[in-house]
């Protein structure tokens, strides 16, 4: 088990190195010129010859591998970053300095993390809270009118593009109906005012939760239908166990394993930032931030958020594998 974890962590580090290289290369050879953008902004569009200063200080006249090594070193020990005439201090783990705010990117990331974590936990909680019980109930009534109605209505719901769904939720509840308490969407620190935090997050959770739970209903229904048709369920019935024990202890226990796997990956993705949700409900999290960065050509931020999602995916995959081996005794990690 320990050896397995070490092996996975090493391979994870390798993947991250490759991902960071890829991101850096895209950054470097990308079609936009960060120097031009930043120069235009800082000189009120009278950049002219001063572009050279920006290019030199940003390192664009150096070979790409030297700059990558500089960047990589910064991740571990920090470095100073010079843009035009100003030098910015960037402590480890340094992912660069935002061209827009001139703040170290890693600090900003940490600042925005609570908002994204709030969205992710609330949304994921609703996925499971509604998705699994509804899926199980549908599986137990497989083929009935209620099951068919549920499956088709959820299929309809999940065919709506998510951004439209979230936008309509926001439009109806906050603008048209002015629902009390929840209309003031956005992230408010839970430590300052838990009620305001809850109210600000509520619609984001509902939009994310309802939309996601349609998928989880489908997963858990399918998984449960399969589990309930297994031989061991017939054995459990033949033992004289009550139906509740048969369905939950024997059926659900087996049906949950694949659902947990999907959930782990999904949760990692949610933590990497929910762009539509955060944008529509005005939550200043990592998703919103990465969107702003793309619009502003703030490349260090784009690179950092991309790398951050890679880290989360690697970690959530690892956690899922470990949980899988706990849930299914037949799986041995090696």
């Amino acid at each position, binding site marked *: 088990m320990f050896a397995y974890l070490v092996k996975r962590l090493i391979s994870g580090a390798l993947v991250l190195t490759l991902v960071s290289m890829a991101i850096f290369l895209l950054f470097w050879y990308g079609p936009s010129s960060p120097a031009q953008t930043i120069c235009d902004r800082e000189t009120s569009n009278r950049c002219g010859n001063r572009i050279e200063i920006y290019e030199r200080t940003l390192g664009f006249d150096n070979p790409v591998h030297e700059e990558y090594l500089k960047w990589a070193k910064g991740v571990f020990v920090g470095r100073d970053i010079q843009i035009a005439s100003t030098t910015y201090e960037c402590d480890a783990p340094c992912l660069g300095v935002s061209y827009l705010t001139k703040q170290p990117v890693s600090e900003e990331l940490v600042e925005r993390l609570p908002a994204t974590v709030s969205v992710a936990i609330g949304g994921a909680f609703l996925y499971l809270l509604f998705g699994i019980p509804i899926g199980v109930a549908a599986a137990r009534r497989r083929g009935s009118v209620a099951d068919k109605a549920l499956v088709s209505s959820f299929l309809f719901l999940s065919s709506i593009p998510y951004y439209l769904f979230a936008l309509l939720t926001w439009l109806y509840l906050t603008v048209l109906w002015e629902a009390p308490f929840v209309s003031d969407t956005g992230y408010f620190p839970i430590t300052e005012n838990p009620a305001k935090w809850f109210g600000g997050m509520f619609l984001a959770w509902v939009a994310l939760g309802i939309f996601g739970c349609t998928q989880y209903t489908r997963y858990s229904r399918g998984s449960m239908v399969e589990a309930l048709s297994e*031989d*061991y369920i017939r054995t459990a019935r*033949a033992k*004289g166990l*009550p139906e509740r024990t048969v369905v939950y202890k024997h059926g659900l226990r*087996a049906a949950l394993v694949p659902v947990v796997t999907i959930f782990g990956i999904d949760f990692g993705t949610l933590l990497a930032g929910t762009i539509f949700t955060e944008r529509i409900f005005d939550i200043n999290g990592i998703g919103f931030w990465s969107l702003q960065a793309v619009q502003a050509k703030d490349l260090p931020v784009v690179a950092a958020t991309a790398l951050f999602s890679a880290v989360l995916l690697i970690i959530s995959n690892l956690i899922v594998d470990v949980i899988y081996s706990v849930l299914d*005794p*037949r799986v041995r990690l090696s």
Partner: protein
Amino acid sequence: MTTTPSETHVGQRERPQSDGPILVVEDLSVTFPTQDGPVTAVKGLSYSVEMGKTLGIVGESGSGKSVSSLAVLGLHDAKASKITGSIRVAGTEVVGLSEARMRKLRGNSVSMIFQDALAALHPFYKIGNQLSEAYLVHHPSASKRDARRKAIEMLDRVGIPQPDRRVDDFPHQFSGGMRQRAMIAMGLINDPSLLIADEPTTALDVTVQAQILDLLQDLQREFNSAVVIITHDLGVIAETADDVLVMYAGRAVEYGTVKQILTKPEMPYTWGLLSSIPDVAASTDARLIPIPGNPPSLLSPPSGCSFHPRCAHVDKVPGGLCATELPALTAASGANHLKRCHLPNPELIYRTEILPEIAPDLVEEIR
């Protein structure tokens, strides 16, 4: 763990001491509505099993052997099946019994062991826990410790080495034969009066198969329970059964003692089953003769005798009766020997046509 069977089991549950059969099935029909129309998997089946006896039910896939036994335990989904007729277990009518009362019966006075123990045991729970669960559900006052002790005792009984250690293994850590032993231990943990074994040796190799069958017989003697063994293997029947019921397309087509069925079968389908057994001891002249064709679709069963499209002896029945009229289950030559066939002189045909083909040396002996 060292208690003798009599100490452990006497007085646990009132056991029918009467001479009446433990299981009586009368005119049982099981119908499943499907999208293509109703499928009657079992039609007008009747049989009974006495305490301490073994009934073998034999037939091809889809002949209704498993369906009829699952009905004994009420394991068919009430919404997706229609069961008529009567099934009495120790005098209790099971057809139409409430789910709650049915549950008290299942795994308690009637238990079932299934083929392919790997699939039939839950992959995520330890063997011991699965056995304890079966014990606890019918002994609500017993402690978990008691149940565990009972589970270890049962594993020991069915010949699992180091049962106190293996009790904490998962099913995948057992070998195929051991899994089936554990399955049997689970079936017998509540000392059932009736044990239904649905192809208990199908997934096992021949040596292990023989061990399991021996074990079943030993345990049956020890527990004095009635056993219904479902199989498509006449070898298994020869080794274990007292009486044999041959099923075809949902109906009983022949019934008799194991000796009657194996030495004087009177129904061409039984002949077919016997002809298709490979026999290592037979002379090399003996032929292995498969039954031509496939089991009929139960959606549109053949007219008359269900077996007539595959039967080689249809011409011997005058007036094409086989295709038009379903033969009744009537007395054959032996006592309590029943057959469902129009053939006027089946003994003669068997002796002169079938036996020389499958076992020429036996013909000599009879002469």
